[in-house]
Structure formats: C-alpha cells, structure tokens
C-alpha cells in the first residue's frame, strides 16, 4: 500500500507543480466566482441561481474531465522520458503503479470537485443575499422550496396504452381494415395507435375533467408540510403567453385525505408549481389530482379552450425528501464516479499509446460516453430498416458502425444516464440509489475492468521498447 500511496502522492505533486492542475483550478475558480456577475437567468432570483448552478456545474464537470485526460498522459510521458526506467526497477509492481496513478488523479479530482462544490454553495448564498428583490419574500420562498431542496418527483400513472392499442389493432385486423393499405407495417401501426391513445388522454376539452393518480408519495403527511404539483400546459388555438383559467382539485376525501381546490390563472407553455399541504396525500400514500377545464373566475372572459398536458415534463408531484446540502454531496459523488472512470480510460490509453494518441482516444471515449443516448438514437434511426448486406455501400457502412458501436458499448457507459445536474438545479433529489448505481456501474464494474486491461497491457509492455 505504501508504494501505491507513494505513486499517488507523486502524481498529485506532478499535477500541481507542472501547473496543469493549477491552470484548471484557476479556470474553475474563475467560472464559479465570475459567473454570478455575468449570468442572471430570467432575472428572477430562482432563475439567477439555477442558471449559475447549471453553468458552473457543467463547466466544472467538463474541465475536470479534460484535466483527468491530461493528467493520465503522465504515464505515457514517463515512458517517453524514461522516468519509468527508474520506477519499474524498484520493488513496485506494475499494478501498483497503475492503481497509484489512478488514485492520485482521483484524489486531485475529488479535491477540485469539493472546492468547486463548496465555492458554488457559497456563491449561491451570495446571489441570494445580493440579488435585487422583485417579488421580495415570495421570490426567496420559491428559491428555497423549489431549488435549494431535494425533492422527490413522482410521475402520474397512465393507462395501459399499449394494451389498449393492441386490442384495437387486433380488432382492426380482424375487420380487414389494413388490407387496403399498400405499405402496411404492423409495428408502425401499433406505435401510431399507442401515440393516439396517449395524445387523447392528455387533451382536456372545455368543461372536461381529467384525473391524475399518483402513488408511492412517501412524504411526511403533516398539514404543516407541503407537496408540490408541477405541470406545463398548452392551449390549442391560443397565442403564447396567454393566460388560461382552470380549477385544480388535489386530494381524495374518499381515501381519508384532505381535499384542496385551487383556482388558477396560469400562463401557457410555462412550468407552474402549485403548493398544497401534505395531508392531501391519502393514507395509502396515493394522491389524486383533478383538472377541471372551467373558468372559476366570474367576470373574466375565457373562450372554450382545449388544454394539453405535455408528455415530457408533464404532470409531477414533488415532495421534499432531503436537504440541498446533501443533494449537492450526492451530485458531486456522481460526477466523481464519471471522473474515476475517465481516469481509468486515460491510463489504459496511456499504457498502449503515446501522448497525443492516448489523449485523443480518451477524448473519443469521453465524447462517446457523453453522447451515447444521442448516438444510440441516431444509429437506431439509421438502422431501423431490415438490413441487407448488398443493398448499398452506405447502408453496409452504417450497419458496420452500429455493429462496432454495439461491441464497445458494453464497456463505454452512458454518462447521460448519470447526469444529475439538471435534476439538482431543479431541486430534484439525486437519490442515493442513483448514486450507488453510478458507483456500481462506473466504478466497481467498468473502472475495474478498464484498470485491469491497463495493468494487463502494462505487464505485457516492454518499458524500454525500441521499434526499429
């Protein structure tokens, strides 16, 4: 262990004294301390804090990712400049060198991440303190209740649209409806039917009522606590920024819960959060929320309109499950998992390639991990049709790329799956389960595999290899 720690210390010393890490440290400090003076968001206090946190966390993650890749090149530098001659001729195993370097990088990253997190926390309070008041106490309340908290979000239950769609599809098939269609694709037809059912369910016509059911609302149901109902709606036929009026009923008295009725004037195409006492949640931890599309305000004109609750960013019930501070710690832990994985990738590349190639390949893996969702969607889209090898060179190339991508994706994780910045900025809970799953996949499994590969190649490699 002493040797591992010695290599780790040396790695940290190198990062600091060779000024690579210092440059990144200064950049992170400049961003964290400079952003509050240049980013104001939508000019509200909440907007300013959210924009600041979002930009500073993304920039910190990106900079530390780049720093990790640059730091890992230290190994290939030691091959090129032969310091490795002196290290491997000492009683230190090659696995200890790899693990020591990885540990050193990880400790440096952890320190920088803690610095960035602590600085960001301080600057959030600085913004709170210095931001010019608009809605006064309400603005600060909104910030405290919707951003500087850890809220758990529950999506509403939706009917079983695939089952409904399948039933209709089978009925239509029996009736021979599709026999006349020249380009009939059963899967596409099923997909269209599901979308139709979903879209219908999200549309609420004038004077119509829609019930949204939530379960597993595991919050403190005291009357002095609150839950939040968050949604965004469009209105067909209205221009943007128009206001609609409606009635929301929250709570199901039939299940022993307190019911609350809210009359709202809400701007369309904006998120709205309605705060309701937590005793609206039933004993079985369910919550019923009902939207009635009527105008409750006498004397205010409203044409009969059709409300549409969006699918993405749709209805949610949020309840506080933890503090902002611990949420920040969990977010930083998640970011740290990615950096640990990236450090292992950098070391693997450095054992195989020399400096520029090692860095470029590490960047490629970084980009692939960061954009994996996008890449998967793109490849799915391009390879959607049935594959015929000789149909065209273009198709063959696309399928080849998809095939290679499938081969490497088992070891390259999807960073977007563990991207918690947006949730954190919106005051959502970064759950411990989420952090543990990130740790499990990124560190325990994939980092160990990658480090194992790095150690394998390092043992195979001749440190003084000469190619003539």
């Amino acid at each position, binding site marked *: 262990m002493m040797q591992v720690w010695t290599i780790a210390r040396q790695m940290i010393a190198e990062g600091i004294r060779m000024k690579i890490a210092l440059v990144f440290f200064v950049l992170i400090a400049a961003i964290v301390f400079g952003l509050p003076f240049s980013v104001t968001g939508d000019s509200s206090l909440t907007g300013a804090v959210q924009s600041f946190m979002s930009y500073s966390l993304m920039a910190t993650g990106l900079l530390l990712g780049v720093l990790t890749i640059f730091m890992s090149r230290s190994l290939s530098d030691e091959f090129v400049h032969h310091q490795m001659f002196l*290290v491997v001729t000492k009683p230190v195993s090659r696995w200890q060198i790899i693990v020591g370097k990885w540990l050193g990088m990880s400790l440096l990253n952890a320190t920088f991440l803690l610095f960035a997190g602590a600085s960001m926390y301080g600057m959030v309070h600085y913004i709170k303190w210095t931001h010019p008041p608009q809605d006064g106490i309400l603005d600060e309340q909104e910030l405290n209740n919707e951003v500087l908290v850890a809220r758990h979000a529950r999506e509403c239950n939706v009917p079983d649209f695939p089952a409904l769609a399948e039933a209709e599809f089978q009925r239509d098939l029996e009736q021979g409806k599709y026999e006349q269609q020249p380009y009939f694709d059963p899967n596409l037809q099923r997909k269209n039917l599901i979308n139709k059912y979903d879209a219908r369910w999200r549309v609420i016509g004038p004077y119509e009522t829609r019930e949204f059911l939530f379960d597993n609302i595991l919050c403190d149901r005291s009357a002095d606590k609150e839950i939040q109902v968050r949604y965004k709606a469009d209105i067909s036929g209205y221009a943007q920024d128009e206001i609609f009026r409606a009635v929301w009923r929250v709570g199901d008295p039939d299940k022993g819960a307190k019911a609350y009725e809210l009359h709202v004037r809400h701007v369309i195409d904006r998120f709205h959060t309605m705060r309701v006492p937590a005793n609206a949640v039933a004993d079985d931890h369910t919550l019923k929320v009902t939207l009635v599309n009527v105008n409750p305000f006498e004397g205010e004109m409203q044409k009969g309109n059709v409300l549409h609750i969006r699918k993405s960013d749709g209805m949610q019930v949020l309840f506080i499950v933890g503090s902002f501070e611990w949420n920040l710690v969990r977010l930083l832990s998640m970011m740290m998992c990615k950096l640990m994985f990236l450090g292992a990738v950098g070391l693997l590349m450095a054992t195989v390639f020399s400096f520029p190639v090692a860095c470029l390949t590490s960047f490629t893996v970084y980009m692939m991990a960061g954009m994996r969702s996008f890449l998967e969607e793109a490849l799915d889209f391009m390879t959607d049709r049935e594959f015929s090898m000789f149909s065209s060179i273009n198709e063959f190339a696309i399928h080849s790329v998809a095939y290679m991508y499938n081969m490497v994706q088992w070891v390259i994780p999807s960073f977007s799956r563990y991207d918690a910045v947006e949730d954190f900025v919106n005051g959502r809970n970064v759950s411990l389960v989420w952090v543990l799953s990130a740790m499990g996949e990124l560190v325990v499994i994939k980092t160990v595999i990658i480090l194992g590969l790095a150690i394998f190649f390092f043992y195979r490699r001749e440190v003084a290899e000469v190619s003539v």
Partner: protein
Amino acid sequence: MAGTKLPVVQTAGLCKTFKDFWRRPRIAAVKDLNMEIHAGEVFGLLGPNGSGKTTTIKMLLGLLYPTHGRISLFGKPPTDVSVKSRIGFLPEESYLYRFLTARETLDFFGRLFRLPQKIRVERTARLLDMVGLSHEADRPVGEFSKGMARRIGLAQALINDPEFLILDEPTSGLDPIGARQIKDVIRRLGQKGKTILLSSHVLSDVEDVCDNVTILYGGQEQAVGSIDDLLCQQDVTQMTMPTVSDETIREVKDLILRLENKNADVTHPRHKLEDFFLQIVSQAQSADVKTSGARAGGEVPDFLKTATATEMVDLVGSLVAAGSAPEVPVTAMAPPKTKDLVDPVRGVLDELLGKEPVEADEAEEASASTETDISVASSKPPVSADSNVIDALLQGEHKKSDDTTSSESNP
C-alpha cells in the same frame, strides 16, 4: 570468488532482437550471451556503441524482455519484484522527475523501497552530502545541470544499500571530480562485497575499478576475463625510477642493446590531467570560491561502508590533498605498485652508478617530472626486470626468470 554460491547474475543463450513497426525482426542487439557475475565482483561491460551493453542491462532489469534465452538474478527472473529490492540502478541518463527537489527525489525512491521514514531521512541527508548536493537539496531537479542530476541519479541508486549495483555509463556528464568520486564509490562498494555491473565507454573507468570484464561487439561476447589477464602486455617490460642522468640512461640503454639486442625508449611520465584538475579545484575550494553547482562530496554514508572501510575519507579532499600540499607531490597518488618498484630498482642503479642509495620516503616525495620510464619491446617470453636481472645485466649474463617481483612493471 564464485565458490558454490549461486551467481548474482546468470544469463544463458540470451538473445534480443528488435522488431520494426510491423513486428518483423530487424536488429539482433544481443546474440547468445552467456554471462555470470558472482557476488562481490565488480564486473565491466565494454563495447562500442550498438554492441548490446545497454540492451543487456535493460534485460537484466526487466525493462526489455529477451527474445530467447534465460536470465536469473539472485536465482529469480528479473521481473520478480522481490529481486528489485536488492538492486540499485543508475541509467545512462538521469531520468528524474523534473518537478521534484533533490530531497524529494531520494525520498520518493526510498518510499518505493518501503524504507521507514527515519531511515529515509537519514540516508537522504547522507547521500546528498556524499554527492555534494546538500546545499541544493530543496531545488527542483529540473534546474540541475547534467552532472548534478547524475549525482542525484547515483544517490537514488544507493538509497536502498543495494547488494547489486548496475551502473550504465556512470561517469557520463560528470566533471572529473564527480567521475573520480563515482569510481571511488564503486571501489569502496566493491570492497564491501557488493556486486557491481559497470557499463562504460570510458575504458579507464572500467580499468580502474573492475575485476572482470566482458567485451561485447555486435551483440556477442568477444572477450571475457580479469582485467589483469586481459591487459597484461607479456611482451613489454617497463621500469620506473626517479630521474637519472643522461649518462646513466645512455649506459643502461647501451647495456640493454648489448645484452638483449633491443632498443629501449626512455621518457618522463606525465601527470594525469585528472589529478592536475583535482589539485586546481582543491585550491579553489580552499579559497572558498562560491559555486551553484555540486561541491566536493562528503563522506560515503555509513550504511554503504564496509567494516574495514571506516577510514573512508572526504573523497575529493583526500584525492587532492596530496597534490595541494606543497611537501607531497602529485605522484603520491600513483598506485602503490609503482611506488614499491622504485626502491629496489633505484637501489640497484645507485649501486651500479656508485651513488649513495636514496631513502624510500625521499623517492615518494619526488615529483613525476623527476621519474623516468624505460620500456623495452620484446618478442620473447615475459622477462623479469628484478634486481637479479639487473645483476645479470651488469655481469654480462642474461638470466631468464619467470618470477614477477615488485621491481617489474608490465604495462
């Protein structure tokens, strides 16, 4: 020396072939090398550039893997980590971390040897003192001159008090003081019973310190044996004595010509430039001239000393002391063998020439310029030049003898 003990280094049929980018074999750097180095040996590896010296060393250290053949260090393969704790290695260039200070560098390598902190601190201080860099201990190694970095390289090679020391071109880039110091350290370690493998282009370095050598060329062993066996010129006889008159020289030459029918060359030996340089530096140090470079090294640390070598002294100081002191000439540094041979020969010559014998101490005080070398080339078997020979010469008889006495010198 070998006894029945396992050799420290043993290679059998060792080959190394370097390949090109496409993994095709291109250059055979080492071919079928069989080598044994036994405990306590100071072993020299000689050869021109590209002869395979460094490749051999790298294979011994596990930095390169042999294409064929077998290597054992202390009976184990070179990749065995436990073996490495018994080895010290000074590479051909000092591949140090530029950002670490001299002290941190030694501490870093000490940690890799798992030395306890107390010992690390102590050894670091002693080694820095030994290589004359105590005053630069907290300066980054990247700012050091090549020679200073080399000294740190030597210090790191000794931090673990190795049983087996591998030195690749140890005097490369060093000033004469450093070079002499390293040679002295090698000698001292050899006295202690350490095993040393020395690779060098500087033949005098190898000659000065090594017991045995292997000469490589084209990756193959060309010659192997002890320095004495390899370097002794059996067909040349050399006598060294204090300056004698031209008349004496003429008479001796005539005598040799008459009895042996051979011409003798008579010259005055020269100082070695190294000795002269050390004398000048010593004078500068005495005058306390400031320098940012390495200073005269201190004593070799106790942990590297032998029980019999406790008299080890300030290296450069001792080296130059004789030269700087007016009453002791530089020739006092000449090997004892040379000094020993002066007395009997001089005595005989004095007797021959009817002069009073000179005391041995006086002879030692004589400067090199007052000495005379006589060399006689011969195609005959070895000839002893002891007092018997001189007697025989004077009596007009030639008495062959195979004896080698202190009065004979074979260059």
